[in-house]
């Protein structure tokens, strides 16, 4: 991966702006919203997605929020229609999903409260096709038709 890509790898917008972020006080209410969502998830399993790019953030507000949430253990990258970067926050079950286009511009930034973000899970239609695909490969390798169960 080229160095320039690596710099853009972080979900935080800190690299985009110079100087220390200022607070306009607009990040704090979102933290409360996340708390409610997490509580719902723990109690009922209901998942939540919050569109952070639709928040009325001033300069520095997004960085403040991501700083508060911290960085967790898991990072993942999906290559489909440009890169999508998934970062677990230090709060288990709270994920940042940064959708970028091939030119590295942000399409949207979601916060997901879930066990695993939707984009990482195989899609049901893909799972349906998977068995057929695997069978075809087995057949090619062994020359026999796999037993169907």
């Amino acid at each position, binding site marked *: 991966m080229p160095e320039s890509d690596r710099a853009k790898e972080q979900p935080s917008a800190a690299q985009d702006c110079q100087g220390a972020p*200022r607070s*306009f*006080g*607009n990040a704090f209410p979102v933290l409360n919203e996340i708390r409610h969502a997490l509580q719902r998830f723990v109690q009922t399993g209901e998942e*939540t*997605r*919050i*569109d952070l*790019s*639709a*928040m*009325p*953030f*001033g*300069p520095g*507000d997004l960085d403040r929020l991501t700083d508060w949430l911290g960085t967790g253990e898991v990072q993942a990258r*999906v290559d*489909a*229609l*440009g890169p*999508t970067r998934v970062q677990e926050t230090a709060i288990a079950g709270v994920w940042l*999903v940064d*959708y970028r*286009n*091939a*030119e590295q*511009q*942000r*399409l*949207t930034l*979601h916060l997901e409260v879930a066990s695993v973000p*939707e*984009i990482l899970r195989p*899609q049901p*239609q*893909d799972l349906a096709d998977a068995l057929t695909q695997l069978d075809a490969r087995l057949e090619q390798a062994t020359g026999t038709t796999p037993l169907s169960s």
Partner: protein
Amino acid sequence: MATPKRPDKTLGESLRAHGLSRRGFLKLCAATASMMALPASMVPRIAAALEQAKRPSVIWLSFQECTGCTESLTRSHAPTLENLILDMVSLDYHHTLQAASGDAAEAARMTAMEANAGEYLVVVDGSIPGPDANPGFSTVAGHSNYDILMETVEHAAAVIAVGTCAAFGGLPQAKPNPTGAMSVMDLVKDKPVINVSGCPPVPMVITGVLAHYLTFGALPELDGYGRPMAFFGQSIHDRCYRRPFYDKGLFAETFDDRGAQEGWCLYRLGCKGPTTYNACATMKWNSGTSWPIEAGHPCLGCSEPSFWDGGSFYEPVSVPLTANARTLLTAGAAGAVVGGTVAAVAKHRVKKADANRQPVTIEELEKKL
């Protein structure tokens, strides 16, 4: 130019035929939800609807305008996504973007109108010299803007007026309105008109409205000025990040005082945010980099009717302000379904339309100049 007839493949099928994976499709839907200002929880519904959607034919008419609206759209944020949205419609006529010119261009418009009668969308940028004005003030292929507009919208499913000029008359209509400029909604009374105002409009809002039509096959819920609630439902002031300073009474008094440096509220410097409804505060400009208030300048109120005649840009608004934020309204559920049934009836009438319109003559031009 694309083929004028709508292809029969659904969007899901044609995107997969272009090699887009299901995860890629899901990502497209997440970005589309943001673009339509819909909550992220709507993504699965959008995915289901886009999977089944068909490409609508779009005819784009430019009248008394500066091309700023088209510039805004084509310079827009997120090229991959914008291109995909534009690929999802069949843009059959657009002066500035089409390769064809002269008779071939006009023929493309007529063909698209005929093949998709009752189903195509008309996008208009620029205001129109009204029926009583000199028809020669603005012409396309020798015909007055008024004639071209009325002919094109006759069999359209809906009209989208892009930019403050098309939506409210804009700069051409500013006093003393020398060309008798009128807005689309002043002239088109029998079709749904959606106003996407702004000078220019936020590009994501233009494509967002197209994406909404594509996704739901319906027009979005509109406000009193015919603007989509999803983008124009809240004032700049309601969503402004400087609002906490307004609430505390901390105002910049000049452009270089301490308040300006600290990022305080720009109300006293003439900010029209409290009376202006637009999406700048969240969608922002220049690839989502910033927006006028973040750059330290008050909002001019460019998405409101008569904003050019509203007095100085640097005088505070004099209306009493209330702090009650409007509820964020979700578009998509409401809105009338358009197109479809009227299509068949309309189809055969289109052919005759251009026979009725007459080019502007030298005599007409001289008469009223």
